[in-house]
C-alpha cells in the first residue's frame, strides 16, 4: 500500500517535471559546476549520501554539469544552514543538503538557528528508519508483542550523541516504555554507540536502518544482539506502519500498545510522533536557495526523479540508502512540511522534557 502510494507520487512528480521540460522551461547547466553544500564534515552520513547522489545527478541534469560536494561543517550543521539562508538564487549552481540534525535545532528554537525552511525549495527528500535492539538475555524477558514491562527495573546504559539530536527519538521512546535509561553522552557517532554495546558497556542501542543492516545483523546472526522494534514508517495518510525494510519487526507503536502504561495517544505520544516524523521519514533533503524560479526547481526535481528511474537504481542504492522512499516533487514538499511543521504543543513538550530530564536549556 505504502509503496504503491509513494510510487504513484513519484510518478506524478516525474510527470509534472516532464511537462515543464516539454514547455522548454528548463535551465541549461552545461559547462557549469553545481556546488552541493553539506553542512557536516567529510566523514559523516550526509557526506556518504551526497557522494552517492553527486555523480548520478551530474549525469541526470541537462548539460551534464560537474557536481561537487563541498563541506561547511560547524555548530551541529547550523552554521552551514545559516550560510545557505544568506545565499539567494543565482543560476541554479548551488544546492544544499540538510539532515535531521539541521531539522531538530530548527524545531527546538536553538538560538543559533537563523534559517527558515519555508524559504527554501525542496527537490529531494530521502527517508530512513531506525531499529532498537537489546542483548539476547534482556530480549528474552520481553513479553508478547515486545511488551517491555519486565524490563522496567533494569539499569540501562545507552551511548548517546546528545539528547537534542536524533537520539531524542529513541530516548523519549524508551522513557515512554517505562525504562530507566541513562544516556552516556559524548560518543562521536552511532557506530561508537554500537561498539559500546558490543563491548557490553551499553545494554540498549538503536541504529538507523542502513547501519543496522550492515553493523547489527551480523551480531544478530552471531547471537550477541536481538532486534526489538523499528520506529516504523509512514503511510500516505500519515499513520505509522511497519517499516518495509523490516516487515517482521513490530513498530514502536505496537510495542507501546503492548506495554502497560505506554499510551499511543495524548501529549507525549504526539510529541514523540512529531519528532519521529521530523527525524526519519524525511531525514535528508536537498534544497535550492530562496527565490529559485519554477523552471530551476523543475529541472532538479526531474533530475532526481530520473535517477530513480535508472534500471540499476534499486541495486546501487540498496547498500547506501536502504529501501526507503526517495521523494521528489509534491511528495517531497509534503514530506518537508510534515518534517518541519511540528505543532507548538509538541515542541513545548519536548523542550520542557529536555530541560527537566537532562537539564538542557535552549535559550
Amino acid at each position: 500500500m505504502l509503496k504503491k502510494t509513494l510510487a504513484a507520487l513519484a510518478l506524478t512528480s516525474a510527470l509534472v517535471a516532464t511537462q515543464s521540460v516539454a514547455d522548454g522551461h528548463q535551465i541549461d547547466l552545461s559547462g557549469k559546476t553545481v556546488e552541493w553544500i553539506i553542512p557536516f564534515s567529510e566523514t559523516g552520513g550526509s557526506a556518504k549520501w551526497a557522494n552517492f547522489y553527486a555523480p548520478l545527478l551530474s549525469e541526470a541534469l541537462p548539460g551534464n554539469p560537474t557536481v561537487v560536494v563541498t563541506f561547511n561543517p560547524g555548530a551541529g550543521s547550523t552554521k552551514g544552514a545559516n550560510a545557505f539562508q544568506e545565499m539567494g538564487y543565482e543560476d541554479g549552481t548551488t544546492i544544499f543538503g540538510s539532515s535531521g540534525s539541521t531539522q531538530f535545532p530548527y524545531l527546538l528554537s536553538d538560538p543559533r538557528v537563523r534559517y527558515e525552511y519555508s524559504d527554501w525549495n525542496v527537490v529531494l527528500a530521502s527517508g530512513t528508519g531506525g531499529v532498537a535492539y537489546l542483548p539476547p538475555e534482556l530480549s528474552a524477558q520481553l513479553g508478547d508483542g515486545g511488551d517491555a514491562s519486565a524490563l522496567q527495573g533494569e539499569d540501562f546504559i545507552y551511548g548517546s550523541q546528545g539528547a537534542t539530536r536524533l537520539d531524542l527519538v529513541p530516548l523519549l521512546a524508551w522513557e515512554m516504555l517505562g525504562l530507566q535509561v541513562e544516556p552516556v553522552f559524548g560518543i562521536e557517532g552511532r557506530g561508537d554507540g554500537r561498539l559500546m554495546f558490543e563491548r557490553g558497556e551499553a545494554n540498549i542501542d538503536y541504529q538507523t536502518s542502513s547501519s543496522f543492516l550492515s553493523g547489527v545483523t551480523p551480531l544478530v546472526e552471531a547471537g550477541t544482539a536481538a532486534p526489538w522494534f523499528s520506529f516504523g514508517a509512514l503511510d500516505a495518510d500519515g499513520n505509522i506502519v511497519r517499516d518495509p525494510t523490516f516487515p517482521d519487526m513490530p513498530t514502536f507503536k505496537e510495542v507501546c500498545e503492548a506495554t502497560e502504561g505506554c499510551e499511543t495517544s495524548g501529549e507525549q505520544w504526539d510529541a514523540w510522533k512529531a519528532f519521529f516524523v521530523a527525524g526519519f521519514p524525511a531525514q535528508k533533503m536537498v534544497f535550492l536557495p530562496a527565490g529559485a524560479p519554477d523552471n530551476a526547481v523543475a529541472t532538479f526535481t526531474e533530475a532526481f526523479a530520473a535517477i530513480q528511474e535508472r534500471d540499476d537504481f534499486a541495486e546501487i542504492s540498496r547498500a547506501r540508502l536502504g529501501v526507503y522512499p526517495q521523494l521528489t516533487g509534491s511528495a517531497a514538499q509534503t514530506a518537508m512540511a510534515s518534517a518541519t511543521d511540528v505543532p507548538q504543543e509538541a515542541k513545548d513538550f519536548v523542550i520542557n522534557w529536555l530541560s527537566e530530564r537532562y537539564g538542557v536549556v535552549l535559550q
Partner: protein
Amino acid sequence: MEVFATAFPALSDAFAMILQPHVIGYLVLGVVMGLCIGVFPGLGGIAGLSLLLPFMFGMEPVTGLALMVGMVAVVPTSDTFASVLMGIPGSSASQATVLDGFPMAKKGQAARALSAAFASSLFGGLVGAAFLTVFILAARPIVLLFQTPELLMITIFGLSMVGILAGRVALKGLVAACLGILVGTIGEGASSGALRMSTYDMPYLVDGLKLVIVGLGIFAIPEIIALLRRDKAISDRAPLGGGWAEGVKDWWANKWLSVRCSLIGVVVGVIPGLGGSVVDWIAYGHTVQTAKDKSQFGSGDVRGVIGPESSNNAKEGGGLVPTLLFGIPGSGSMAIFISAVALLGTGSIEVGPSMLKNNLDFTYAIVWLLALANVVGTLICIAASGGIAKLTEIRFALLAPFLFMIIAFAAFQSRQEIWDLVALFGIGLLGILMRRFDWSRPAFLIGFVLAAPAERYTNQAYQIGASRFRRGFEDGIEYVFSPIVIVLIIITLLSVVIGLRQAKNIQAEGSVAAGSKRAPVVFLLAVTAYIALTYWNAAIIPDFARMDRVFPVFVATVALIGCALLLVQMMRADETSAIFADREAEEADDNVHGLWATLGWFASLLVASAVFGFILALAGFLLLFIRLRAGKSWGYAAIYTAVGIAFICAMAWTLNRDFPPGVLQSFVDLPWPLT
C-alpha cells in the same frame, strides 16, 4: 589450524588480486598523488581522498582500493619532509619526528635524517602488515576487551609521556600540558553542551580548535619566525657526506628499536577511539627511555627519528582493524575510506562486522596493498630526498613566504573561515613565547590532543562504573580494575618515575641559556591569568551540566598549583637558573631582525586578508616581502609572486576549495579565486 585453513586460501586470493599490472599501476598512481599532497604540511589524507571520491563510483573494487590505499599509505611517509626539513609537523603522524629530525636538518644532516625516517617507515609498514595478517583473525574479541576504563588508562599513559618531554624544569612541562588540555576543552562540552571559554556570539570557538591549526601554530610558526630572524638557510653548515646511505645504516643499527616501535604502532593503532594521534609520542617516549646515552635527544639524535617513524606507518595498518572489522573509522581519512569502499563496484563490500566472514580476501588485499604502497612510496621518497634536502640550503627569506602561504591555506581547510587564520596566528604567538621561554611545546601538544579523549573517557567510565556499582560492588570493581587496567597503571607509573628521573637529561628542544628575570615572570603571570580565567569560566557552569565542569576545573586547579609553585621557585632562584630560560638571550647574536618586525609581516597578511580576501592579500604580501625583506629586485619579486599565486590556485582548484574572503568581497562580487 582451522585459522590457517581459512587464512591461506584468502591470502593467495588476495595476492592474485593485487599482483596484476593494472592494479599495481593504480597503486603507483595513488602513491604519487599521495606524495604530492602529503609533502604539503597540514593537507593530510582527508583532502586527498575526497579528491578521489568522485572517481570511485562503480570502479572495479580492487583497482579502486589500490588507488585509495596507495594514497592513504604514503601520507605518513611524505609528511616527514616537512617535519624534518622545516620543523613543521606535516600531520598528526609526524609530530614527534620534528623533535630530532629538524635539529638534524639544521646540522646539515637532512638527507641522513630523511633516509633513516623512510627506512623506518618502510620497515614499520611491513611489520604492521605481517602482524595484521595473523592478528586480524583474532583481533575482534581482543579489541572488545578494551572498554572505557582501558581506553581512559591508555589516554593517561599517553599523557604520562609529558614526564619525558617536560624539559629541564618539570613543573613548566606540567603546566604546559595542562594549558594544552585547557585549550583542548574550549568550546561545547561533549557531555551536556555547556560552553567553555566561548560564547554563541563567537561561533568559531564553539566547535573548539582543530589539531591542524594548533599543530601548525605551536611548531611551525615559531620555527619559521625564528629562522627568518636569523636570515640564513635552515642548515647552518655545509651538508655532510654520506647522505642517504648513512641514514639507512643508522636504521639498521637500530633495527630492534624499529621493531619495537612498529609493534607499538600496530597495537595502539588497533584500539578504536584514540585515532593513533598519540602513537608517535608513545614511540618517542619509549625510544628515549630505552636509550643508554640520552644526551643528544632533542638536538639531533637519529634514534628520535627512527622510533616515531617506525610507529606511524605501522599505525596505519593497525588502524585498519577498527575500520574494517567494526566499521568504525580510526581517523578522518579512514571515515572517507569507508564511504568510498561502499561506492566501489556494486557496493558488495560492506565494511563492518561481516567483513572477515564475507570478504576476507579483500581484507587481506587491503592489508598487503598497504604494505606494497609503503615500499613504492619509500623508494620514491628516498630517490627524491637528496634533491628535496637541498631546500635547507636556500636562503630562508625566500622560502618563508611560500611556507606561510601553504600553512595558511592548510589552516584554512579546518573551518574555511577567516577565523582559522586568526586562530593560527594566536596559537602561533603562544608557540613563539613558549619556545622563547623554554616551555615544552610537545607537552602542550600532547595535552591538547588528549584533552577530548581524557575528558570523554573519564566521564563515560564514571557513568558506566556508577551503574555497575549500583548492580553490585564486585561488578563495579571488576569493571574498573580489569587486568588490562592494572597492567596499564603499572606501566604508566613506571614510565612517570623513569621519566621524572631522566627528564633533566633530556632537552627535547635543545638547551637554552637564561636571560633576565622580568620577561619569563611576565609570561608566567600571563599563563596563570589565562588558567585562572578558565577555572572561573568552568566553575560557573551550572549543576545540571556538571559533567562538563569537573574536568576543566580539575585540570585548571592542578595547573594553578603548578603556577604558584613556579612563582615561588622564581622568587628564590637567581638569574642564571634554568627556570629563567630565555631564547632571546641565547640567540641574540644570531638574530638580524627583531621579533615584532618579523611578526608584523604576518600580522599584516592576516589583516589584509580580512580586508581584501586571501588571494589579493597574498599577492601583495609576496611581492612586498620578496622586494623589501629579502631585498630582491621588483622583477624577481613579481615572478615569485606570480608563481606562488599560480601554485596555490592550482592546488585549491584541484582540491576544489575556496579562499578566505575579506570585507571587500561582501561588497563586490569577484570571480574565483578572488571570491
